[in-house]
């Protein structure tokens, strides 16, 4: 073979690909990576220290005498470890990530830059308030955007994620009920289709959960709801997602709010799907009493492989007095942080300090970038994209509910009937094709659910490619290529993992003897 002097081949001979395993376990760019415990040693370190003389210990005789057992790596080894690991992840920046209910939209890098300004990132939560006026201003400004976008009078900023926001709202409802002396009002209505956090939250706030069924159209069954309210003495309220987890707007929502209010209850709206509404509908106009926002969904703060999130929770006038501390008030040109609940009706404190400041900066940066006009456009594009996917797949996959969807399209597994391929297999085949699977088996009201939320961040071209792949997979499934699906994924860093084994005898940490 001829080659040039840089060792570049000039005319390769085409040979059959032998995918023989490598000695190293690596496959070219895909690096096999050991655990830090297998490569690091306790004595190695990737940090230098300046000489500091010791002083007589004041540790009260509790000096550590045993080893901790923590491996260290030099900086170059550390870089490599995490860069290699990172490449084993899918990510929004790599491809379509159409996880329904998760709003995996573009995470602007401007937001990352802003959150790292020393004036935000390097500020202590307990500095004198005179030294953090900009931080308080930011929180107040963001709160103002949130109130205007939701049409609600107030927002509790401290909740740390969506589920924490649910706690906030439901605790406010409990506190309001308790303040009225309505200790018997403990029953909370929750649709079957609700996200798991809803019932879990209700119980964590001392409520009992009463499930309400859905209609064939995928919405709250109003007849069933009315039945539940016949004896409404113990009704504390309802927790309802809107658009609901089927991606549908709850058409009767105003009526629902009225019924709940008439029963002396409160309306908690799960705002995880607010991306379908921003700038088009204000939940405050629907009669809700509380709703969390997931800044890490609707307002683009990164998911970070599972967090951190931020769940500011808007509250109606009725719940406002019970809002948790802390909160920011503006007095003239000065911002003040109210940290102490003593002597107020506030239900107390939900967390240390003042909430997810880092996420606030990012979310405000997102909102300001879009503006009122851009936010509305984003919502429209999100709904348009979802409907485009739904319309483009409706002939080969089975749309769960007819009609337009909102920001996500729900399919069931009836199109896979008798193919031997199930929803999970279908999803794993998507992985091989370079796509993150959609949300599966949720909501529970649909068999083998596939919930696709493309968000506004996908271009038409990207969606067209996605649709082509989905159509091709659907036809392969129908054409009896079940083996292809059962084997998938074959191109991912690992093949299917044994979850049963993981749960049966859990190995939750590395141990020297385990190797």
């Amino acid at each position, binding site marked *: 073979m001829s080659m040039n002097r840089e060792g570049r081949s000039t005319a390769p001979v085409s040979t059959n690909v032998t995918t023989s395993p490598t000695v190293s376990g690596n496959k070219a760019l895909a690096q096999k990576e050991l*655990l830090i*415990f297998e490569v690091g040693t306790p004595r190695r370190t*990737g940090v230098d*220290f300046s000489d500091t003389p010791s002083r007589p*210990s004041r*540790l*009260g005789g509790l*000096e*550590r005498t045993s080893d*901790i057992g923590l*491996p260290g790596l030099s900086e170059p080894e550390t870089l490599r470890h995490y860069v290699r690991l990172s490449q*084993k992840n*899918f990510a*929004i920046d790599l491809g379509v*990530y159409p996880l329904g209910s998760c709003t995996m939209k573009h*995470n602007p890098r401007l937001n990352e830059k802003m959150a*790292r300004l*020393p*004036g*935000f*990132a390097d*500020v*202590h939560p*307990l*500095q004198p308030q005179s030294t*953090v006026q900009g931080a308080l201003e930011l929180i107040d400004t963001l709160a103002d955007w949130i109130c205007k976008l939701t049409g609600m009078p107030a927002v509790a900023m401290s909740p*740390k994620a969506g*589920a924490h926001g649910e706690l906030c709202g439901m605790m406010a409802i*409990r506190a309001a009920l308790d303040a009225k002396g309505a200790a018997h009002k403990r029953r909370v209505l929750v649709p079957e289709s609700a996200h798991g956090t809803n019932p*879990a939250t209700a*119980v964590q706030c001392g409520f009992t959960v009463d499930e309400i069924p859905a209609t064939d159209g995928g919405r709250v069954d109003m007849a069933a709801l009315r039945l539940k309210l016949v004896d409404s003495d113990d009704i504390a309220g309802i927790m309802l997602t809107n658009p609901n987890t089927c991606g549908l707007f709850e058409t009767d929502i*105003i009526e629902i709010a009225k019924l709940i209010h008439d029963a002396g209850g409160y309306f908690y709206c799960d705002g995880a799907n607010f991306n379908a509404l921003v700038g*088009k509908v*204000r939940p405050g106009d629907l009669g809700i009493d509380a709703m969390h926002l997931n800044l890490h969904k609707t307002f683009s703060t*990164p998911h970070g492989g599972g*967090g951190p999130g931020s769940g500011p929770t808007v509250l109606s006038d009725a719940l406002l007095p019970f809002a*948790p501390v802390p909160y920011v008030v503006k007095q003239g040109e000065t911002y003040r942080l109210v*940290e102490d609940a003593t002597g107020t009706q506030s239900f107390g404190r939900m*967390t*240390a300090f*003042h*909430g997810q*400041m880092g996420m606030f900066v990012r979310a405000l940066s997102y909102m*300001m970038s879009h*503006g009122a006009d*851009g936010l509305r456009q984003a919502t429209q594009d999100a709904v*348009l994209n979802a*409907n485009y996917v739904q319309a483009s797949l409706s002939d080969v996959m089975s749309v769960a509910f007819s009609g337009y969807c909102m920001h996500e399209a729900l399919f069931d597994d009836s199109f896979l009937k008798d193919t031997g391929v199930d929803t999970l297999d279908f999803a794993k085949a998507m*992985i091989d094709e370079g796509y*993150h699977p959609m949300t599966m088996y949720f909501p529970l009201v649909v068999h083998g659910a596939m919930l696709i939320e493309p968000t506004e961040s996908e271009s*038409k071209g990207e969606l067209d490619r996605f649709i082509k792949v989905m159509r091709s997979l659907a036809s392969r499934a129908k054409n009896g290529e079940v083996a292809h699906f059962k084997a998938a994924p074959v191109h*991912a*860093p*690992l093949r*299917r*993992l044994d979850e049963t084994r*993981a749960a049966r005898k859990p*190995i*939750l940490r*590395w141990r020297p003897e385990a190797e």
Partner: protein
Amino acid sequence: MRYLPLNENDRKAMLAKIGAPDVDALFGDVPKSARLTDLIDLPLRQTESEVDSALTQMAGKNRAAGSGPFFIGGGAYRHHIPASVDHLIQRSEFLTAYTPYQPEISQGTLQVLFEFQTQVAQLTGMDVANASMYDGSTACAEAALMACRATRRKKVHLAAGLHPHYRETTKTQGKFQGIEVRPCRSRPGHDENVMIGMDKDSAAIVVQSPNVFGEIVDLQPYADAAHAVGALLIAVFTEPLAFGAIKSPGEMGADIVVGEGQSIGVGLNFGGPYLGLLACRQKLVRQMPGRVCGQTVDANGERGFVLTLSTREQHIRREKATSNICTNSGLCTVAFSIHMTLLGEAGLRELARINHAKACQLADMLTEIDGVELVTDTFFNEFTLRLSKPARAVTHHMVEKSNVLGGLAASRLMADDNKSQDDLLIVCATETNSEADMTAFEAALKEALS
């Protein structure tokens, strides 16, 4: 708009495919009365540089900790974070991934979680740790609930040295679940009061060490007392670095260890996002809240990692879940784990030694000043002083006159307690404090008290 890929041609073509006349038709399910016709009264779109300069201006109104002498702790600690940590957590593959529900294409996050869990378990002396909670305070509250589940009891005792925000968070969480949370009044040197009233109904006692005043508490007597009545000891910390210098809670009999991980890799961030750490003994594993990552094999027998034990969690168990937590502190665990890997055992211990040395030096310097008395005999990198003047006024004076953020007035945290804490100043020193910083603090405090 720079973030929106669709253009008008795309939109038209897509509407045609859908068969909708216009985009508003897609919103047809919204009751007419609730459809907005006008734009919401908020500013219009702004360019990247406009947003940049507006937010930079806001940031400029804050006194960044690093822009002058800085000695505040109180549950959040300022340490130097290597540049590589921030670089790595900004990688798209960590930053823009969701919870690793599809393990075949999430091994990056999952292996980091597995390593993180091991690091936390080692550091705390526990058998296992979960994949994080929101922050130390919510981890503390969740630990209290967890202890109640494990013991099937409903009474929890909180020690005097527990960070007041943790106490309040635990009280809030407990009160709606019918759990009797019995706090002690915040004051230094009175942790043992927590044992008063402990009995066969007690699920747990919650003791922090180093506590909010900086005191190092020997947990063993608390563990013994708790175990004697069938209760659990929940050990709390806010400064994980301390375990580079002192015994781990696991070595002193704790059953559950919870705390704040912000100190390693995460940064101050004006209070969030932070990183809740939760670790426990093996036997309590199935009572743990939150996600946990476990080892398994793939179809080819290769080692891999998955989220596991999910039958504890809300998405499977719904109203019977151990907690409602879903999103946790994902990326902060990555930051923590990277920083911890860079430090390693040797680095962590040296860093802890330096922190202690700095705090000792500072305590010696400040207690030379008239009107300053050291309240905490033992401490790691944070200690409490009693001043001859109200501490809040002193801290304000110091920052205004000398640009020194000289500690935390205890009353800021303990506003709801009686006034006896007004003259207490909680002071923290770390490796980030230079000699010049300390001298400036000394001078500022002297001036403020004179």
